[in-house]
């Protein structure tokens, strides 16, 4: 684990895997909840967790790099089920890259339990991990100028769902009617870091 200083009040904690980032994120959220960590933002990402708004970054850096981060306790958090129709325009391309039929893509994707590793790109957009590495796909060479809201997509090791229409370069394999983001709802984001997700195929 490395603590990289970011400006005057932030630390970027770098770890060696996505799993470690998730464990570290869970531990930092726990410390904040119990009151032993005072921080404005805790932003998990692929291999890092950013802590922003720290009063004493140096002390926290020393403390974190000297300590063992306990494995996250299994949470009794329910799995969020997202109904999905596997009807995306890139489904056939993804099937070809995986070397399987489009139906098999749907079966593999719906048979996977995902976890939200981190969010970003747009409010409510989660980077979901869970697919084995052999199913990694590249981004499209030319991004689409408008990806419809509810598009279920793949890129690299991640699955994501577009909360609203936006430009995007991910491979679109399906569509969900689930509302990913509603600022009038509490919580506004259906998915947040650590949320477990399962896609349920709909006819």
């Amino acid at each position, binding site marked *: 684990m490395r603590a*990289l*200083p*970011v*400006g*005057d009040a*932030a630390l*970027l904690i770098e770890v060696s895997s996505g799993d470690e980032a998730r464990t570290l994120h869970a531990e930092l959220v726990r410390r904040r909840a119990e009151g032993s960590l005072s921080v*404005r*933002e*805790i*932003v*998990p*990402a*692929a*291999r*890092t*967790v*950013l802590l*922003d*708004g720290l009063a*004493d*970054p*140096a002390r926290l*850096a*020393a403390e974190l790099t000297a300590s063992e981060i306990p494995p996250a306790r299994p949470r009794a958090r329910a799995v969020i089920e997202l109904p999905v129709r596997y009807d995306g325009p890139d489904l056939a391309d993804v099937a070809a890259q995986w070397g399987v039929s489009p139906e098999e893509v749907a079966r593999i994707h719906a048979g996977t339990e995902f976890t939200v590793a*981190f*969010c*970003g*790109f*747009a*409010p*409510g*957009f989660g*980077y979901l991990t869970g697919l084995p590495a052999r199913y990694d796909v590249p981004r499209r060479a030319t991004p689409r100028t408008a990806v419809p809201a509810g598009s279920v997509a793949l890129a690299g090791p991640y699955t994501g769902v577009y909360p*609203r229409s936006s430009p995007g370069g991910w491979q679109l394999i399906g569509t969900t009617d689930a509302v990913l983001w509603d*600022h009038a709802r509490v919580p*506004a*984001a259906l998915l*947040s*870091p650590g949320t477990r997700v399962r896609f349920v195929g709909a006819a």
Partner: protein
Amino acid sequence: MTDRALSVVRSGALTTVQDLGRPGHAHLGVPRSGALDGPAAALANRLVGNRPEAAVLETTLNGCAVRPRSTVDVAVTGAPCQVSVDGRPAAWSAPVRVPAGALLTVGTAVSGLRSYVAVSGGITVEPVLGSRSTDLLSGLGPAPLTDGAVLPLGTPNSLHTRVDTAPQPAPPAELVLRVTLGPRDDWFTPEAVRAFTSRTFQVSSASNRIGLRTEGPALERRLTGELPSEGMVLGAVQVPPDGRPVVFLADHPTTGGYPVIGVVRETDLPAAAQAVPGTPVRFLEIRRRWMN
């Protein structure tokens, strides 16, 4: 129906509602947002007796014109510009009484870029995640102003202390941004890091509330691989593949995949909000307040 409202007569190039922003939601992909020139917005609020968290209008370049439905006090700060009420010149950076139905015109910035218009009682559009700020990146908060829009106003806060006038810094002829290196300065060649902190860049016309884009020497990378997406702070200087540094401002994305060569000190960012395209920019390397 209350008559405490503001009709938008001329929305201008880009006028948005801004307050202190919505920090604390970066992990959900929600930018902080908020007034780019925070001190100017705070001063405008003080001049009309508003609380610091009251929402104001942020205009860009060519101002706006609004008509209050009830008599209000207004103050215009930030980029200096001509202020008028029903065509009669009024004070800039001082409280101005605008009678019900009169037209308040905020003119084109004489220097600088963004003017702030505080109205007594504040703009009270529906908050989103605790803030009324327009966020241009993610579309949260009210849409940018359009001609004919009507904005609700709150009740003036008569107990709040107010000031009558206050000095403001002039918009910068040259922008000097103090920067601490890292967290990814090691992704660049030593020559690129030296160029970053010694050469002069210019503010690009492609700048916006998301980032201050620059033109100048392209910063060459030492590591050419892909950087996995990671969290970004306000003031982060990200360098995309074209090598031109971008200083992240209030509507910046919360994570990004290009290396951050340094971070601009937050107190220097209000000046960045007022720097017009072509303004020379220098990144002045400073040591962190803490160093181990």
